[in-house]
């Protein structure tokens, strides 16, 4: 497979993510992009319908094209580089963003979170571009060939991270929206963001779906670390942050029914948990950058 095909797919995906992000953000900022004149029974412009008829018809469509190209890019690149996408960090971030986008596209109608695309699309773009700067892990055949644990560990973590990305996006949107309501600013952004409860529910459901994956990820990670034994400092740190992420998400999920921690508190908890998950990703990234020579060589190719 020709390397340039992977490059073309990469840049096309990045461009499409960029345009989709721009459209979503422009809509939130009040531009009447592809607006429709649908009205509610009360006669006001029905923002939800306007979104469905207008921006969200175009921006998610673009995002869908982006996801397809992105998936193709991952497949082609993995052949070019002879690396399985679920082994190692080079594709990890890329896979997180593609899964996050695909899940958003599938769930946006059901959870009434159309505008959350304004947060998901830029994140996808960031992850995609970041993946370009992460070196391709040199496989360690002796260890990897022997165990199926590592691919499972990476896969569940990536899927979990994709869902946490969506929970994070919903949490940020919730805080923005909640702030508008508390300050009684009922203008454009307020009308364009989804209802508070829809955001709270979406955040909770994404978290709930991601948590078992994270749990499996933590378990497989622990087993794997025991096998390899004597990990370096970064590995220990990663594990610690991994456990912290699990604890935080567990607390957010538990306190919701137990102590009524909904809305703002749940959103802060989700954002903090996502922050920890990102730290784990960054620690992987730093580990990969350890082989800086590889990165430079790959980028220069």
């Amino acid at each position, binding site marked *: 497979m020709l390397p340039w095909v992977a490059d073309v797919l990469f840049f096309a995906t990045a461009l499409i993510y960029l345009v989709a992000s721009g459209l979503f953000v422009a809509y939130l900022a009040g531009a*009447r992009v592809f*607006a*429709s*004149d649908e*009205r*509610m029974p*009360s*006669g*006001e*412009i029905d923002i939800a319908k306007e979104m469905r008829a207008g921006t969200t018809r175009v921006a998610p469509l673009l995002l869908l094209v982006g996801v397809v190209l992105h998936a193709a890019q991952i497949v082609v690149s993995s052949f070019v580089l002879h690396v399985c996408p679920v082994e190692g960090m080079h594709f990890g971030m890329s896979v997180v963003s593609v899964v996050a986008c695909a899940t958003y596209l599938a769930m946006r109608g059901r959870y*009434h979170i159309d505008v959350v695309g304004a947060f998901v699309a830029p994140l996808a773009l960031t992850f995609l571009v970041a993946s370009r700067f992460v070196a391709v892990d040199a496989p360690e055949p002796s260890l990897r060939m022997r165990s199926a644990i590592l691919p499972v560990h990476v896969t569940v973590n990536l899927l979990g991270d994709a869902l946490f990305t969506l929970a994070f996006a919903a949490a940020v949107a919730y805080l923005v929206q909640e702030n508008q*309501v*508390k300050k*009684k600013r*009922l*203008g454009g952004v*307020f*009308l364009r963001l*989804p*209802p*508070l*409860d*829809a955001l*709270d529910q979406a955040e909770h459901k994404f978290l709930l779906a991601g948590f078992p994956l994270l749990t499996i990820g933590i378990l497989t990670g622990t087993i794997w670390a025991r096998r390899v034994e004597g990990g370096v400092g970064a590995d220990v740190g990663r594990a610690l942050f991994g456990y912290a992420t699990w604890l935080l998400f567990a607390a957010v999920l538990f306190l*919701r*029914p137990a*102590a*009524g*921690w*909904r*809305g*703002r*508190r749940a959103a802060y908890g989700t954002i903090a948990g996502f922050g920890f998950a990102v730290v784990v990703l960054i620690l992987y990234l730093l580990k990969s950058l350890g082989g800086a020579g590889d990165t430079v060589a790959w980028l220069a190719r």
Partner: protein
Amino acid sequence: MIVVVGLSHRTAPVHVREKFATSADVLPQVLARLASHPELRESIFLSTCNRVEVFADGSGEGAVDAIRDALCQHAGAPSAEISPFLYEKTAHDAVRHIFRVAASLDSMVLGEPQILGQVKTAYDAAVAAGTLGTYLGRCVHRAFSVAKKVRSETALGAGLVSISSVAVDLARQIFGDLSGHAVLLVGAGEMAEAAAKSLGRGGKGIRVCNRSMERGAALAKAFGGEAAPFTALEDELARADVVVTSTGSPTFVVHADMVKRAMKKRRGKTLFFIDIAVPRNVDPAVHKIDNVYVFNVDDLEQQVAEGLKARQAEVAAAEEIVHKELHDFETWSRGRDVQPTVVALRAKTRAVFTAELERSLGGRLKHLAEGDRAALAQMLDSAVNKLLHAPTTRLKAAAAKDEGADLAQVLQHLFDLPELPTNDAKPEMLEATPGDDERLPQ
């Protein structure tokens, strides 16, 4: 000529307007009465809470008087009583008025969308009654497209402009779909009733908490809900999602401590207060509690004021659309005025040529074969077309500049055209067919 005679919230108080209240079933009779006036070729009767108007195609003063008579008869009041409130508009002004009405530029609440539906209903009724033809029909159709353009190209209909719509939209923007939520009315006065009407019952039904259990029960019954004693307010707060307070209490009825306790019971689920009472029923400190939102009358009214201000800013853009569409309609209308002259000129020229041809074919050219005769007829046809091309296009161009009438007269004189059928003749009437929106030429 298109004329409009009527009255609206701008000219007539409600006690006059209500005399004209017209239900859908009497509309055909009203239209038939209008159609019985020979001065009125086409007519539409528009009746809303805020306006009663007749749009018609008729001949000048006679048409205006006929509509005045019909309106007085309809209201069952002497002319002297009604006339001071009536306005009349003709030609350019009338068309402009129809466009502005449909676009909601003349509405009491600027930009409200109901008026377009009401004009459509009036249009359909007129088509069904056979009182609408191609001329006025086209004008009203144009009005629809003006309204659609104003709606999609300006923000005249954007923003929230009534207390109830602001309250309902707020609730929707917090809870999304209200169907799965419970509504609680604290106080059972008229305002509570109005709020219940606009909010609907919610999915879990409506509950009423009132000092007088009797009155509360009556209101609850009217909305298919249940009443609760006032002492159980805190428990009710734990069950409700949207709370509308409207008691006459001089002090706060809902306190922060009470809501904090209720929030514990409801495990932090979102609670939304609409406090429409003056003085306020809900302590403003309640708004500071997590997942609790309180909006009072001032908050809602501020939204209304902002919405109206934003709409006002769109008026110029909307008027510009009306202006442009008016110009287009008048251009079409003037072209229509010279059409009989064009038709007569063509008919006469063709008749002269055909007569001459027939004569020759019966005499000197008798020997011509069938094929040659046909070729000759075709040649004359194309000669007529070429000859009349320039006068036709010039006449239409002049008509577009409102100079068509003079030129048409000159042509009639020079070519000795017969007495022309004017547009005063009864036009072709529209027939009601499903999906008639696309029937008229755009």
